[in-house]
């Protein structure tokens, strides 16, 4: 297992439709967030769409950024855990081990992206929804921290399928099974998932990017980082967290025109 799973998010394609949010909630047994929870700032959303308004009326633009756990290589949440419930594994995943977690919430305070969520209550579903729970994902009880796992249950399932078929789990044939729920649900292919160990290591160490990245997502990152005016960036890179999620800037021709005129 020498992978480093990563994601590319092309903000130029994101329409803010929230399909990824819904897919994530249903795949990962996330309890239902109602108005009261949002008002208390205790809603749980492993992936969320942040909306920003840009400009003055009438030239107003809505900007959308899907934000999920960045699976940082140097994650600020990991060293603060007193019980090693969160750690970095050899697949580049920032792992949250539910049965180790004692709920100190230090990690949520350390996270600069606000992607870790605490279960303040025992999760509850209406009876009609109990049969839609995913048996492959633990239902987190009260008092523990949870966050995006890059759908590790899907990675595991794909790994078993790949072992049965005798192929690599990054094989194009298994792509749908390997992709996290949000990636599969995205109607505009904003999100792309893949093994980006070569690209991410090169970015982290400041060496030359590989000639032929292992995955499609890696190739996309390489293209956007190397080209002049490439759109690649990572969230809060100045903090030195080395995220595994790469964002691509939105291109807005109309907006440029307005700026030059005004």
């Amino acid at each position, binding site marked *: 297992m020498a992978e480093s799973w990563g994601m590319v998010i092309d903000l130029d394609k994101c329409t803010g439709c929230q399909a990824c949010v819904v897919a994530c909630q249903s795949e990962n047994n996330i309890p239902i967030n109602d108005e009261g929870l949002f008002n208390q700032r205790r809603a749980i959303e492993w992936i969320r769409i942040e909306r920003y308004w840009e400009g003055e009326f009438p030239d107003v633009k809505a900007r959308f950024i899907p934000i999920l756990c960045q699976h940082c290589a140097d994650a600020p949440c990991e060293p603060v855990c007193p019980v090693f419930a969160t*750690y970095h594994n050899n*697949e580049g995943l920032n792992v949250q081990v*539910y049965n180790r977690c004692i709920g100190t919430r230090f990690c949520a305070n350390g996270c600069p992206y606000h992607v870790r969520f605490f279960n303040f209550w025992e999760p509850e579903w209406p009876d009609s929804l109990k049969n839609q729970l995913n*048996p492959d994902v*633990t239902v987190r009880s009260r008092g523990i921290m949870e966050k995006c*796992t890059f759908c*590790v249950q899907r990675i*595991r399932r794909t790994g078993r399928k790949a072992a*049965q078929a005798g192929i690599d789990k990054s094989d194009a044939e298994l792509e749908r099974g390997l992709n996290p729920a949000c990636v599969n649900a995205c109607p505009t292919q904003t999100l792309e998932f893949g093994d980006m160990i070569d690209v991410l290591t090169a970015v982290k160490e400041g060496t030359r990017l590989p000639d032929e990245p292992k995955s499609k997502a890696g190739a996309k990152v390489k293209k956007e980082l190397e080209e002049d005016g490439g759109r690649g960036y990572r969230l809060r890179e100045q903090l030195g967290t080395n995220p595994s999620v790469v964002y691509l800037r939105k291109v807005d021709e109309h907006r440029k025109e307005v700026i030059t005129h005004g």
Partner: protein
Amino acid sequence: MIPGDFQYKKPPAKQMLLMAIMGILGLGGFIVTALVLVFVMTAWFGQPVIFGNDDGPDQPIAYPHTIHAGTQPGQLGLDCTFCHRNVTKGAAATIPAVGLCLTCHKTVGDGNDEIEKLRAIAEAGDAIPWVRVHRVPDHVHFVHEAHISFFSERDGILPSAVCSTCHGDVASMTQVSQVKPLKMSDCVDCHRDNGAPTDCTTCHY
């Protein structure tokens, strides 16, 4: 007062305070020690290695694995996978539907009380309310298929020969009971011995 009579002299305030503190501390220490002892004792005696596993739960139908899976003369010697069909395909080994029992027991076993129970359940269209014997906690994801295929491929044995590694010799049990504690150390030890990954996300996700 008669001279020489015992008279209780009130100790000075400082001594009273000291006595009170010592009393409270002593009581607190006693409670803490008792609690620690309770925890240690329950953990120690909760381990099946000391008293062994119990006989397993009573099932609604006294299904004898001996007659079906045993290989002695007069026993059928069925393969485990004949009934637990999903064990080589998916996470759960699965218990067969009542219909599978009836393929034989429509005609076999007239007059046997247990088989009459089975037929009554099948007629009512219900599932047999078996009591689960082996259960790992919710935060553990055990996949039968991966383990069965690994061992049967490596050792060149039948899939059904792998089951006894964790479940013991079920074919000789009239009432199925758990033979291994199935604690995390059992899993991790076996994973280490066989070069399987020991990363937390192998099982916990």
